């Protein structure tokens, strides 16, 4: 309980206070989140764990400004985003967040370079600057020789590297990862986790959903969820 209290303080970088998320399933109300309070410090690395239906995906969607809370408040970098409109949430995703998905979610019809440039396109960067940035990011993830390829021509590990490069394009403070190694074999998964840890070392705040405890061990904190509530928070010794 001691550990948990330290993460419900008032001055967190990312702070959920008594967040509820309720879905209407027929006549029944389902509480995907039944009153969650937690704060994530800047530069920390979290793994959210729990069985399916525990509310971990809902929590990530809310943290990622893709979904809205039913009640409670969500403060992201000193701004209460729980009441913001659709456009303002899009703006937050565009400027402050980076997403890494289990199924990579690259656009298959366009090249690796165009995929990496996608956030820059919406940020309004011009073509030359975007291209330079895409090359730089591709080098960072070790794929500078694959820029002209279509995502379908790459291996799973390579696709996830592209997705990470894309997530970094807008220089977000926060990276949200949904089972980043779920579709990868063990050794590739480890390489991807090494890359994510490296990003954490560079100061990115990382919140990752996973059900593999081996993967979760990479994180500084493991947050276990059950039935829409936080069951426990464990600090890992590195």
């Amino acid at each position, binding site marked *: 309980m001691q550990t948990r209290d330290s993460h419900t303080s008032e001055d967190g970088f990312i702070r959920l206070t008594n967040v509820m998320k309720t879905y209407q399933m027929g006549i029944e109300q389902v509480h995907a989140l039944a009153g969650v309070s937690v704060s994530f410090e800047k530069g920390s690395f979290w793994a959210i764990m729990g069985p399916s239906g525990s509310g971990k995906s809902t929590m990530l*969607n809310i943290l*990622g400004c*893709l*979904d809205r809370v039913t009640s409670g408040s969500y403060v992201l970098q000193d701004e209460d985003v729980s009441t913001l409109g*659709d*456009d303002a949430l*899009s*703006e*937050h*995703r*565009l*400027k402050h*967040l980076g*997403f890494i*998905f289990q199924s990579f*979610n*690259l*656009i298959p*019809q*366009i090249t690796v370079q165009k995929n990496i440039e*996608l*956030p820059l*396109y*919406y*940020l*309004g*960067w*011009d*073509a030359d600057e975007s291209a330079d940035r895409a090359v730089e990011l591709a080098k960072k993830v070790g794929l500078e020789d694959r820029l002209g390829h279509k995502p379908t021509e790459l291996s799973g590990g390579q696709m996830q590297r592209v997705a990470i490069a*894309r997530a970094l394009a*807008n220089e977000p403070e926060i990276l949200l990862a949904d089972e980043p190694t779920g579709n990868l074999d063990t050794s590739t998964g480890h390489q991807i986790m090494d890359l994510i840890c490296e990003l954490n070392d560079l100061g990115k705040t990382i919140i990752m959903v996973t059900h593999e405890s081996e993967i979760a061990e990479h994180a500084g904190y493991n947050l276990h969820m059950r039935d829409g509530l936080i069951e426990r928070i464990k600090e890992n010794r590195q």
Partner: protein
Amino acid sequence: MKRFKLARNIWLGIENLLLHKLRTFLTMLGVVFGVGSVVAMLSVGEGASQEALEQIRKIGSHNIIINSIKSDDETSSSTVYTRMSIYGLKYDDFARVSESNPAVKQAVPVKIINKDARFHTRRMELRVVGTTAKWFEMLDRLVVAGRVLLPRDNEKMANVVVLTEYGARRILATGNTIGENIRIGSDYFMIVGIVKSEGGMAGNIQMPDEQTDAYIPIKVARNYFGDITRKSTAGTWIREMVELHKIIVQVDSLDNVVKTANSIEAMLRRFHDKEDYQISVPLALLRQAEATKRTFNIVLGSIAAISLLVGGIGIMNIMLASVTERTREIGIRRAIGAKRGQIISQFIIETVVLSTVGGFIGIAIGVAIPWAITYFSGMPTVVTMSSIILSVGISISVGVVFGLYPAVRAANVDPIIALRHE
């Protein structure tokens, strides 16, 4: 923050459309044919009406033409051997027409007799037109060589003739024609000028002049050839007495043309027992041509509207399918931070690019078809700038109107569900 640039959005749209070239092309076809048929049909209509207007202009929009015609009962009794048909306009009619109405600026009497003409060994039948200098003032024809008839030709009863270019070429066949004498009937006339003639029909009105005309002073015509003509039809000699075959009246202003035509008709009716004259008003025909053109344009407009509607629905259908197919892509773009408005503009730009490119191909086809029609059939066609501007405008609006609904559908895709979409 940097601007969200239109040119890049258009380029993105083009790139997306190029991913499915065949589908894009087939989707475009509706607009291509719609716009193509609009431009082509309008140009054929415009060509026909401009040709009619041009011909009417050649008769003269200020002119009224009164022709002598055989009335119906006269035609039926003309089989009698000794009978002489007396009909048509009189010299007195000409005097009354030219003096009684203040709106009449000038009038010209015309006498027409078909005569054989000879020049050395060549001969041809000419339509001898006895008239005055005013004929040439009222019908604007190009003078190829020499001069036209002058008032003094009538005063002096000069034996002069003005030939048409066609007639001159056929009977003279020489370059130096002015000053030569040709025989018409049994008399010699000196050629003083050559004019171009505009034969044929303008709408329902026969042009006053023909290719085989020979213009001589009317007093000379009356003096040499008289008012009575004899011609043999099916073994029977028919004698006709016609004083004037035509009176061409020029009215002072366009507003007075129809009014004056009516008052001339009323006056002629008083002096003629039978209706042995016919009044043609080119202006009335011009008005009729304009009304026909309007009707034509309405019909074409409806056809065009229907074909563009069909084309637009085709585009909408494909775009809706495309939105469903690209749900995941939309989800990715939204997750990355694209606003609803940006998704809407992305899809609308795609449909507008599609319909506009289709429109331009349609215009190319719409210009090529009239060209081919003119080339192969000689029918006049005119592609007007306004029809092209109209087509471009229509194709852009088709894109906007029919792209809006699919674009809104795309923007309303829930990114969470879309990202799970397979």
